């Protein structure tokens, strides 16, 4: 058991990667064998991540050196710089890994009954496992170029998945927009990595964080990294690809892309708090205020554009854009406030909101997918009165709606109250805009709920049935997690979020774990 935990950083990447390439061979046997195999692999990986999380919360940061004679041998011989690619796992990394693996598991459960008659499904599962590998690799690695490689793996695999329905022209256009924007962003990340490597001759995040000096080229590299990573995370004014990609992809692909977006947001946090962490108290206030401004713009654009949409999935996609703004104002407040004590509260709210938002928006997208599966309609004007026929779907949509709008006792309230409290102390206007947008989101979704589910039944929808069991199980998993997080927020904050926030606020722990306290 102990050796499994020692090797678990490598196994978390290796097992889904191995399964991704066995899946086409298995699908020649029977398609149920392939579905069951992918489910078992993802469940085993999630168990491994939970074991590793327990170990990290007890023992601190864990590192894994690939190709060395010991998993913790960062300085072989007499070297004074770390060689080889090193995975470094602290509280924030394992938090994001749990999010990614949960979403991948739910997406697989959902897609095993959503796709009944399509071909090309074995490549679909390969690509879904590759998206999982890319996300988990982005969140575990301690090496900047390795982060870029996993970022590209995630974006290429998710672009191929977004274009899965190739007979719809809108999906192809959305996928093309996505790949053009994301590959230009990734090339800018590579340029910034080139700048940092040329200055300091190191690619390891801990070694770079130790020797960063905030010269002009470092500031240029920071701007390039932040611009590209916030573009991948869907923050305004670079959010244009997000509503198209979320709205036109198959629903299980959409929640995987949501998780990939949060992994890019993890990249933003890692760059701001750890890579440039030495200037955390001195120089990063300007970056913090910029992030707060961008976050407010994101909330505003997301919520107001969600008012005028006619397609169900596009409305939820714009609501997702608005929710990302909440996380960003949490992180920006923590940077701009410096050493005052509401900075920690803001960061806790922002980080907790990452998990809550993935669950809420994921549930709403799965419900939208269920409606598309049952009625084959996408336009809100042609749907109505579905509550009599699809009872479970109605309940799930109600839970998702209340959670997104931040109603107690669901989990959206727990994280949003932390964000409201802390941003109010920075500047009251931020908090007022955030609260008003939340109320506006509630209004939008109540109107959609009324027009979709309540009301008279339309004639061409008389024979819709409830969706199959697999999709209901997937939605039930997300709804259960939402209710549990809402009822026991203190327990969740203490166990999962506090180590993540502590890891972000102390970059010296991260540096000393690799460089040995020198």
């Amino acid at each position, binding site marked *: 058991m102990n050796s499994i935990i020692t*090797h678990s950083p*490598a*196994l978390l990447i*290796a097992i889904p*990667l*191995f399964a991704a*390439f*066995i899946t*086409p*061979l298995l699908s020649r046997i029977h398609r149920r064998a392939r579905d069951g195999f992918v489910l078992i692999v993802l469940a085993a990986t999630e168990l491994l991540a939970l074991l590793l999380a327990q170990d990290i919360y007890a023992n601190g940061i864990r590192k*894994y*050196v*690939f*190709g*060395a*004679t*010991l*998993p913790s041998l960062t300085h072989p011989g007499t070297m004074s710089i770390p060689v080889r690619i090193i995975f470094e796992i602290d509280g924030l990394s394992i938090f994001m890994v749990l999010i990614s693996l949960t979403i991948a598991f739910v997406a697989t459960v959902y897609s095993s009954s959503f796709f009944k008659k399509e071909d*090309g499904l074995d490549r679909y599962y390969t690509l879904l496992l590759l998206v999982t590998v890319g996300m988990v690799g982005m969140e575990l690695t301690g090496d900047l170029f390795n982060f870029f490689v996993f970022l590209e793996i995630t974006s290429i695999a998710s672009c191929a998945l977004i274009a899965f329905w190739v007979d719809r022209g809108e999906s192809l256009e959305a996928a093309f927009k996505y790949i053009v924007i994301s590959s230009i962003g990734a090339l800018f990340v590579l340029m910034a990595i080139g700048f940092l490597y040329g200055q300091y001759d190191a690619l390891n995040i801990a070694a770079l964080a130790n020797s960063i000096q905030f010269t002009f080229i470092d500031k240029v590299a920071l701007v390039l990294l932040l611009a590209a990573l916030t573009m991948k995370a869907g923050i305004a004014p670079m959010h244009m690809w997000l509503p198209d990609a979320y709205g036109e992809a198959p629903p299980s692909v959409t929640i995987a892309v949501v998780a990939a977006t949060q992994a890019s947001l993890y990249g933003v946090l890692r760059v701001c708090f750890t890579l440039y962490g030495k200037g955390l108290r001195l120089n990063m206030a300007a970056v913090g205020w910029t992030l707060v401004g961008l976050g407010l713009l994101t909330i505003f654009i997301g919520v107001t554009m969600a008012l005028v949409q006619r397609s169900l999935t596009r409305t939820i996609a714009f609501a997702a854009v608005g929710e990302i703004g909440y996380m960003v104002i949490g992180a920006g407040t923590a940077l701009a406030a410096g050493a005052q004590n509401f900075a920690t509260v803001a960061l806790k709210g922002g980080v907790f909101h990452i998990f809550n938002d993935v669950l809420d928006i994921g549930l709403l997208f799965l419900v939208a997918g269920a409606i598309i599966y049952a009625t084959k309609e996408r336009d809100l004007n042609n749907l109505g009165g579905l509550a009599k026929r699809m009872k479970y779907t109605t309940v799930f949509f109600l839970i998702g709606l209340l959670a997104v709008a931040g109603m107690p006792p669901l989990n959206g309230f727990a994280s949003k109250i932390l964000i409201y409290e802390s941003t109010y102390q920075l500047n009251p206007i931020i908090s007022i805009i955030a609260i008003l947008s939340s109320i506006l989101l509630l209004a939008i979704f109540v109107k959609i709920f009324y027009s979709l589910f309540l009301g008279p039944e339309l004639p061409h929808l008389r024979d819709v049935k409830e969706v199959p069991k697999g999709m209901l199980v997937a939605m039930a998993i997300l709804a259960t997690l939402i209710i549990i997080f809402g009822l026991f927020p203190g327990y969740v904050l203490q166990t999962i979020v506090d180590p993540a926030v502590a890891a972000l606020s102390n970059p010296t722990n991260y540096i000393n774990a690799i460089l040995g306290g020198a």
Partner: protein
Amino acid sequence: MDETSKIIKTVSSVMFPFVTIYGLYVILHGHLTPGGGFQGGAIVASGCALLVVAFGSDAIAKRVKESQLSLLESIGALGFISLAFVGIATTFFYNSLAGTKFLFGRIPPYGSNPGYLSSGGLLPLMNLAVGTKVIAGLFAIVLILAIATRKKGGRSK
């Protein structure tokens, strides 16, 4: 005219083995000279692309099915990951074949020397796995793009 002339077909058929041998040489000597898995695989794939251009995608598609290329690609990827698992007792990707009496296990002498092929441990085997995958993958890309842009129709897959 739609067919290429007989000179082009004959010369490409003669050139294809030479290009393949050169590509395999670059793959196999990856641990001694510049090259390795991706570079050598791209050379072999460009030789295959030469055949596709000379003979037309219909003739090549009759002989090579896309499922065979997909199988070869999966074998290459599985081979690479299995080789990485070999050293899992120490760490992932540990080079546990260097210094043993197995196929590539010899340790070369220090300093300037002409280079010994049987050194490097796991690295030449990984080069072979990556080379297989790259050959299959790039050939599949060229073949499928050529089939999809035919003048009359094309498969809708």
